[in-house]
């Protein structure tokens, strides 16, 4: 068992090492064969593990590989904790990763960094598996940073583009801001409990109740709240919650497969996973839950609004990812951890699907990402179209697609939640459904319906360079479409099949802990639960369903029925549109205030601290002082014999006086 578990992350690692070190020396296809095979085997093994956990009832497998560090008071170990939660994540991660690996074969076909790309994504898979399988904070942090590194490298994959390297750096730094909170949260738990092992922390979490920590002598806060907020800040960085979200849209600089894998399906959900994993700790702090529900709702609604005004197909999907991550965070805040994980899973499928479909469109149009230059692809790319449509329905949450089953409970949970801010969250999420439908179908309509607009640009001055654009876009190769189909199938059925065990059954068992007395959202959901079919039928009476339909209709009106209406609306809104176009000026704020502020602080430190104080005052000042002293003493050396004689006699006198007094 240990061997098998160890193989699951290690196979992708070996594949990554192979592709990284030998990728350029061996034929291209070796890289993708090795990587796909490794991740595929990982997937199969993960599925076996899941089977064992679910069917054979190994509810919790906890193995230790080796002692990383023996601190005397505690041992920091590397090992695996496999319970229903991590088994599910392992399957989702390896499945999506495997499909993306296959897809990459088609997408990156002509790229010179082919082997390097495979090496990176295989490494990413390894790190992500280390993260979800970890049984302690240390290893989780290892995976956490590993996926961050992979993300950094992959966003900056086309390193000759300054915007790409900048986006990579931005992603890394924003994540480091999150890590700052994460590490402090870990530190607090470690300082109080003396261990980093999840099992031990959960067993002793009650000891933390009522403890206070002084932030500064005199300022006392509840320890659990501070620790949870710290951990949540980490999650905010990784899962791109407002205000640490700006790196995610920029990360679209990376190749599309990684947008699907890292920035939609897996890595960005690591924060959600972490909070769910830490549910026993978070249950202890209403303040932290409240913070989560508010931050999540704000992210969900504000990012959905921004999604409306994007013209880059990938950015639309990116903002939708942000918005959906907000939904998950709200679920966490409402103590509906299982709902969050359930949405995480379905989201992984339909969002990866949407990204890969967008990628398929992008290849077909020769790396054209602007929605305004697409249109009418429905006939030319039928598979892509159908799968996209399925993804869009799932995203919008139309019954019976998976998104419906996962999103609806979250909205309900927000309504039933007891912590501060839940009403705000409920309304924000409900409105979010409408907006989601709007931007999703705006994208679908612009890309696949209407008249083709991709040819128009090539009649301009760039005729020669855009020659290939004259060829009509055609359906992508099988390596691209097969992953789309698999994901589409998952997007359709994942919800309807798994809602019963995951939300209302005992699938998660003890791996997720909810305080169902104080935070009874899940309990109240369960009270209303009358089976899948009833749930489906009930959907037609709920507000979100009709809002979704209204959203689709609005999108249809503004894109297909009356395209000019959109422009008129933009003119009418004027300033408000500008705010949206500039992403609420958050980026500008970071750029102008934080980044420039840091730079000016840095240069001030150099000028004031290093040049003036250290070099000027301490070093040169000392030199000057010595020089000045020497100059002054020079005047004592008159050169006249009688002055020296006088000084000697004076010295004699002093000596005698001293003797006299002593006597």
């Amino acid at each position, binding site marked *: 068992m240990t061997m098998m578990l160890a193989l699951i992350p290690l196979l992708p690692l070996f594949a990554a090492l192979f592709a990284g070190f030998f990728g350029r020396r061996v034929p291209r296809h070796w890289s993708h064969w090795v990587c796909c095979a490794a991740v595929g085997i990982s997937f199969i093994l993960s599925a076996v593990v899941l089977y064992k956990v679910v069917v054979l009832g190994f509810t919790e497998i906890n193995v230790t590989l080796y002692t990383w560090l023996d601190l005397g008071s505690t041992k920091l170990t590397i090992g695996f904790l496999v319970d229903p939660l991590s088994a599910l994540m392992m399957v989702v991660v390896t499945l999506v990763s495997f499909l993306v690996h296959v897809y990459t074969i088609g997408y990156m076909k002509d790229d010179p960094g082919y082997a390097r790309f495979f090496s990176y994504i295989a490494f990413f898979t390894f790190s992500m598996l280390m993260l979800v399988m970890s049984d302690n904070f240390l290893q989780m942090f290892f995976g956490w940073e590993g996926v961050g590194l992979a993300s950094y490298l992959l966003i900056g994959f086309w390193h000759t583009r300054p915007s790409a390297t900048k986006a990579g750096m931005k992603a890394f730094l924003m994540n480091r801001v999150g890590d700052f909170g994460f590490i402090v949260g870990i530190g607090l738990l470690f300082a109080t409990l003396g261990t980093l092992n999840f099992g031990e922390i959960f067993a002793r979490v009650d000891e933390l109740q009522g403890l206070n920590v002084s932030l500064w002598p005199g300022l006392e806060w509840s320890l659990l709240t501070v620790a949870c907020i710290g951990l949540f800040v980490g999650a905010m960085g990784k899962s791109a919650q407002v205000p640490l979200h700006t790196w995610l849209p920029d990360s679209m600089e990376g190749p599309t497969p990684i947008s699907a894998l890292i920035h939609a399906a897996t890595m960005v959900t690591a924060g959600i996973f972490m909070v769910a994993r830490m549910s026993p700790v978070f249950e202890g702090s209403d303040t932290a839950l409240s913070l989560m529900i508010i931050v999540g709702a704000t992210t969900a609604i504000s990012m959905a609004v921004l999604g409306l005004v994007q013209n880059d197909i990938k950015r639309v999907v990116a903002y939708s990812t942000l918005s959906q991550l907000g939904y998950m965070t709200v679920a966490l805040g409402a103590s509906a951890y299982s709902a969050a994980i359930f949405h995480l899973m379905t989201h992984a499928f339909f969002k990866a699907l949407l990204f890969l479909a967008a990628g398929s469109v992008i290849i077909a149009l020769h790396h054209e990402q602007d929605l305004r230059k697409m249109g009418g692809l429905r006939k030319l790319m039928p598979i892509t179209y159908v799968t996209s449509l399925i993804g869009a329905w799932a995203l919008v949450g139309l019954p019976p697609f998976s998104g419906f089953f996962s999103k609806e409970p979250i909205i309900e949970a927000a309504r039933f939640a007891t912590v501060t801010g839940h009403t705000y969250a409920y309304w924000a999420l409900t409105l979010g459904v409408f907006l989601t439908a709007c931007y999703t179908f705006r994208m679908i309509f612009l890309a696949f319906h209407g008249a083709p607009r991709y040819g128009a640009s090539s009649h301009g001055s760039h005729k020669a360079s855009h020659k290939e654009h004259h060829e009509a876009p055609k359906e992508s190769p099988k390596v691209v479409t097969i992953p789309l189909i698999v994901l589409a199938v998952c997007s359709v059925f994942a919800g309807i099949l798994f809602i019963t065990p995951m939300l209302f059954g005992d699938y998660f068992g003890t791996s997720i802990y909810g305080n169902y007395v104080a935070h009874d959202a899940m309990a109240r959901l369960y009270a209303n639960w009358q089976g899948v079919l009833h749930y489906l039928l009930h959907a037609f009476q709920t507000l979100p369903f009709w809002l979704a339909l209204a959203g689709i209709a609005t999108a249809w009106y503004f894109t297909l029925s009356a395209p000019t209406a959109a422009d008129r609306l933009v003119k009418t809104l004027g300033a408000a549109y500008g705010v949206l176009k500039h992403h609420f000026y958050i980026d500008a704020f970071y750029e102008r205030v934080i980044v420039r502020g840091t730079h000016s602080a840095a240069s001030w430190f150099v000028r004031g601290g290093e040049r003036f104080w250290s070099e000027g005052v301490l070093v040169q000042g000392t030199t000057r002082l010595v020089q000045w002293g020497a100059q002054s003493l020079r005047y004592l050396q008159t*050169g*006249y014999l*009688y002055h020296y*004689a006088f000084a000697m006699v004076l010295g004699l006198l002093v000596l005698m006086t001293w003797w006299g007094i002593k006597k």
Partner: protein
Amino acid sequence: MPGLEPTLTHYLLLAAALLVISLVGIIANRRNVLVLLMAVELVLLSANLNFVAFSAYYNDLSGQVMAMFVLATVAVESAVGLALLILLFRRRGNIAIQTLDVMKG
């Protein structure tokens, strides 16, 4: 207070007076190096007076031996001093102390 009969104290006081006079001479002398040398002779003479007085007081001739050695040393000192004086005069044309300030910092 010492009486009128010359005792060791009297001799010591005399030597001290001689020493102070010559020291004042050394300090106040601005004229030439030659007088400076003479004042130094006086300083050593006062030291010798102490030797001889103590020699008489302890009835021990060692003090006189020491005085003799001092005399020899003083002789050497004045010989070398005068030689330097001559060199100085050759180089600068005078032996005024005020003009000797090459050691000025």
